[in-house]
């Protein structure tokens, strides 16, 4: 018994402390170094942030370069598959085009009416925000975390918390800013919480990411009556985001009413960052 315990301690000691022929550090030393690095994460000093930002910028750029082969080969297979689906899609597009033409007439009438009403309520400047376009540098599709890295940082005026749009649709917000790059937490991430407005009912809620292609609505009013097709917009509560930016539509997913995003968050390439402050001028 004593021998087996000795064997165990020798094996553990050997695994943790013994250095190989070409090894410069023991496992234990590196584990301790990792723990120190982790504890430094919670310290927020200017010099540490500068070092962190520089390391991250270098790694993001290297990651972008090393991802090039994968990014070239991957889409090649998708392109081949896409060619087979073109005819089928063409027929569907034709049908949709017809439907859209029918809708367009209706929309132009509604637009005129909307403009008239806006003039009446004097709120024509809802979408008067300034944006800058940025490219997605790295899109590491982790099964656990949903975020992307942009090729612009605080040298371009980006700040933490700024909202991100793909076309007219809201897709996330900036959570980390470095000198040349920044990280965007997508609305599909489990850690994402966005104050939203559900129209036409006008319900206020918090939209929580699920790590999937849809989101959940929390803190809805009691006795709410959501319906498939209801639209979800940013509410602007808290003054972080502009109100009225479209996010998604209520759909029946897995037999529950959930928010299906308008944007495909796996296909982000060029995105817009709103750099105007929503609270400015209020």
């Amino acid at each position, binding site marked *: 018994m004593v021998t087996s315990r000795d064997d165990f301690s020798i094996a553990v000691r050997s695994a943790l402390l013994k250095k190989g022929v070409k090894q410069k550090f023991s496992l234990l030393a590196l584990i301790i*170094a990792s723990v120190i690095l982790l504890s430094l994460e919670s310290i927020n000093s200017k010099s540490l942030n500068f070092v962190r930002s520089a*390391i991250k910028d270098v790694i993001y750029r290297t990651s972008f370069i090393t991802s090039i082969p994968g990014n070239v080969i991957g889409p090649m297979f998708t392109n081949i598959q896409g060619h087979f689906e073109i005819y089928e899609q063409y027929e569907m597009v034709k049908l949709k085009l017809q439907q859209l033409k029918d809708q367009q007439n209706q929309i132009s009438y509604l637009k005129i009416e909307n403009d008239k009403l806006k003039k009446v309520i004097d709120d024509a400047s809802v979408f008067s925000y300034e944006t800058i376009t940025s490219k997605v540098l790295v899109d590491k599709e982790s*099964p656990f975390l949903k975020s992307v890295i942009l090729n612009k940082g605080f040298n371009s005026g980006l700040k933490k918390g700024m909202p991100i749009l793909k076309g007219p649709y809201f897709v996330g917000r900036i959570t980390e800013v470095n000198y040349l790059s920044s990280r965007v937490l997508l609305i599909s991430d489990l850690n994402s919480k966005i104050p939203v407005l559900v129209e036409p009912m006008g319900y206020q809620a918090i939209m929580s990411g699920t790590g999937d292609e849809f989101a959940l609505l929390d803190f809805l009013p009691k006795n709410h009556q959501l319906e498939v097709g209801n639209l979800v917009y940013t509410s602007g509560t808290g003054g972080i985001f502009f109100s009225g930016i479209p996010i998604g539509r209520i759909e029946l997913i897995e037999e529950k009413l959930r928010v299906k995003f308008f944007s495909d968050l796996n296909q982000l390439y060029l995105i817009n960052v709103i750099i105007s402050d929503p609270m400015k001028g209020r």
Partner: protein
Amino acid sequence: MFSFRGNFIRRLLNLIPLLLLLFLAFSETDFDFDKLSFLSFNLIYILIFYWVLKNPDILGYGFIFLAGIVNDVVVGLPIGVSSITYLLLSGFAAYIRYLTVQPSLIFDWIVFAPSIAVTNSIYFYILTIFFDVKINYITLALNTCVTILFYPIIGILFSFLANIIIKERNV
């Protein structure tokens, strides 16, 4: 001339696992399938466990530590989490290596399962308890299971490479 070429090839072959580790850490190449997301697995874990068991000098603990830091920065996790996970997995592999007299892929596979389960649990607890990062534990558990299932397949592929390395070394 001949010896120089032989040396070069041997060094290159020895470097393949390390280059693969750094490539996986840096690049977006992920074994995370769009339509079959439940089949996503972590090749880095398999790579580290297999090669530390074979010969810890091939990867080097320093590079494993570095790969962890790179992975944390790319994925957006607190710097150090992946390093700890990778090094703990290396620790398990080194411990098993010390105890094993006659190595076999099946035995390695059996011990890989508890090793990865423990390291992934530590990874999950560090992120949720100390950093308040929410992680879908079902996805993580599924990823762990699939990684375990893929170990023998990847292990066979790696053993081809290991055999070539040994052959070249003997030459």
